[in-house]
């Protein structure tokens, strides 16, 4: 027994001192033969993606008739775990799908900068910033993801509010919420079990809580967590909890898709939703007809601010460092965001595609409003934060709702996490 202990000690100390090897093996190039490209995503298995992929493949075939493309659909909840394993081994797909923001920025070491290849698409597509780091672009956007505030016009009518002109200031908004509560509905459908609710809150309310200068500074990384307006974002969040404006049990309600179900079924008047994929206009239309569904601008919290739609590149395809010929892989990425392919994606998947030239007039007033606001839109605030800070913010937001922490303590902890990473 004693000898065993000594040996284990020797082993541990030895490993600690040398610490050789590495957790992720970068630099090695392998995988993917000349005539075949492997693509990883979590979409290609879905029926709605079929026509999109067909269009993209056809486009790619024109450029490279001799290269075959294989799409491998991974389950989304395991996607980044599997991708992490692939990156560590230095082998894996040539092209892969990413969410914009932290997910791709954390992994740019394994990706090829695409700036030289996608120059022609710059103007046509929107949402590039979410896939860039340090001035380089690593993926071409497919969809745009934004965080609009949807509202239920039928509930507004029931509460004797004008559905055509929702509140434009925070004070008026809380007064409206009181009226909505009297009419028997909750103000917000909130699911904060995963701690994602606060991310939507931060981004949706950011443009009307922070000044324009603070907003731009936030995006470029100069975040002043002690500013009164940043604190105000968390104060209004806490206020929604204190004033019982949120649906009950927000901390145990899943955002996807329980909170959206609450909104759809008319139990709450507002929801901070998405533009693409899930929790958006097309999803809601199942129960809320397009006439009943409204999109409103964020109510002004800090006087002198102008509301703007927060949005970023939603998902986009990137090229792995270990691919044999980055040019061919980049051409595939371009095909995957070609105009025809994106048009099919918008129509079948119910997403706001990155190509802003697509005609969306058929999809109802909510979508038309969204697309018209893209021009004045700005990158979403939470996308600029690291995954670690977002995770912490999620937990702190739950504490704010349950009343076990103060706003000052929250910004202190977030500032520390933001500066560390």
């Amino acid at each position, binding site marked *: 027994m004693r000898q065993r202990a000594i040996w284990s000690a020797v*082993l*541990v100390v030895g*490993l*600690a*001192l*040398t*610490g*050789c*090897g*590495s*957790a*992720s093996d*970068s630099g090695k190039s392998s995988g993917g033969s000349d005539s075949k490209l492997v693509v990883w995503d979590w979409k290609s298995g879905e029926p709605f993606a079929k026509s999109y992929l067909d269009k993209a493949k056809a486009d790619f075939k024109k450029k490279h008739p001799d290269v075959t493309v294989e799409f491998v659909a991974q389950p989304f909840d*395991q996607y*980044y*775990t599997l991708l*992490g394993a692939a990156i*560590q081994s230095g082998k894996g797909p040539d092209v892969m799908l990413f969410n914009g923001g932290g997910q791709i920025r*954390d*992994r740019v*070491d394994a990706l090829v900068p695409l700036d030289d290849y996608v120059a022609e698409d710059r103007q046509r597509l929107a949402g590039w910033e979410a896939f860039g780091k340090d001035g380089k672009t690593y993926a071409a956007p497919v969809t745009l993801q934004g965080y609009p505030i949807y509202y239920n016009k039928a509930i507004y009518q029931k509460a004797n509010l004008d559905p055509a002109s929702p509140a434009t200031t925070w004070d008026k908004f809380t007064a409206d919420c009181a009226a909505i509560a009297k009419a028997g509905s909750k103000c917000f459908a909130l699911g904060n*079990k*995963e*701690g994602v609710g606060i991310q939507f809150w931060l981004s949706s309310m950011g443009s009307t809580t922070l000044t324009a200068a603070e907003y731009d500074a936030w995006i470029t990384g100069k975040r002043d967590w002690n500013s009164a307006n940043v604190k105000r974002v968390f104060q209004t969040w806490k206020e929604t909890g204190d004033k019982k404006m949120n649906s*009950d*049990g*927000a*901390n*145990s*309600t*899943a955002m996807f898709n329980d909170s959206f179900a609450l909104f759809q079924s008319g139990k709450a008047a507002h929801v901070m939703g998405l533009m693409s994929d899930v929790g958006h206009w097309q999803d809601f239309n199942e129960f809320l007809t397009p006439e009943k569904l409204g999109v409103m601008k964020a109510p002004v919290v800090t006087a002198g601010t102008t509301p703007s739609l927060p949005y970023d590149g939603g998902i986009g395809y990137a090229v792995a460092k270990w691919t044999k010929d980055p040019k061919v892989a980049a051409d595939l990425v371009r095909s995957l965001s070609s105009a025809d392919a994106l048009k099919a994606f918008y129509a079948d998947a119910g997403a706001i595609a990155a190509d802003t030239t697509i005609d969306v007039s058929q999809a109802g007033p909510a979508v038309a409003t969204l697309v018209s606001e893209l021009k004045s839109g700005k990158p979403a605030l939470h996308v600029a934060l690291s*995954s*670690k800070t977002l*995770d912490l913010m*999620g*937990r702190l937001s*739950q*504490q704010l709702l*349950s009343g*076990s922490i103060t706003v000052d303590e929250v910004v202190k902890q977030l500032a520390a996490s933001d500066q560390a990473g």
Partner: protein
Amino acid sequence: MPMGNTQPSVRPASAGRAGGAAVTPATHRSGTRPRRTRGGLGAERYAPYILVLPAVLIIVLLRLYPLILGVNFSFTGDGAQNGTAVGFGNYRELFADPLFQTALKNVGLLVLLLPVAVAIPGLLATFIYLRVPGHRFYRSVYFFPAVLSPVIVGAIFNLLLAFDGPLNAVLSSVGVDPIDWLGDPDIAMFMVVGVHIWATFGMALVVFLAGFATLDPALLDAARVDGASLRQVVWHVIVPALSRTIQFVFVTTMIGMLTSMFGLLYIMTSGGPEGSTYLPEFYIWKQQGQMNRPALASAASTILFMIMLVVGLLQIKLLERSGKED
């Protein structure tokens, strides 16, 4: 699992040591054989090693080597520091992380709740053994949750325990305010552990029933003739006679709690609310899959491995000691 009932039924005095000791006498004894065939076949001398080789190779290549690699990774950095040695940096970061501290505290909580998790199937098995009315029915019903996947169990209880769910509806009908079962950090962990016990006690129940099969009914009859109450029968006859089964269930339940609650956690609370239901497993998954910190996750895995090792060794010690008492 069936080892649990075969062992007590054979019940040789050295059964506890049989596993480890059986190999060594065999090799020693083979030492007498070469005397007969001295200078003869070398192959025969190497035969045992060759026969053991596949098993050893599998253990070394697929278990020990990855384990050492993992421990090695845990001493390197993540991200920009990828591949460079950082000594105990990851471990320092881990122990400073309040989330990991919560995870370790929750492991402590699991250890504290272990007796409950063992007592429930034990008591229920006792009732079935004592043939309470409807025992056949209960026997199958109790086992039923054990065949459900944790994901399904989690989804069922998510619905039941939702704020506007049936449990709160029942409570409010008797005038109790609704409770946010999975949204209150003081309650959520107990709910998850409770559901885990509900979902897995069927297996332990079967082990207990198998243990009862080896119990000498004459002892029970004698106790009854002497006028022992049910409590006395359980405490003075059943518990001592089943001590080995109970220990086995303790070991398997502990391992089950530490290593297979991920599915339930993921579905029921996702580690929340406020990070109160983190367990090391969930922490490892989060760091590796969500935060892209494989080296930090390796360090957490190493610590989880150490915990399991200590718990396992302690339990083997306990088993050995009780084996000697027999």
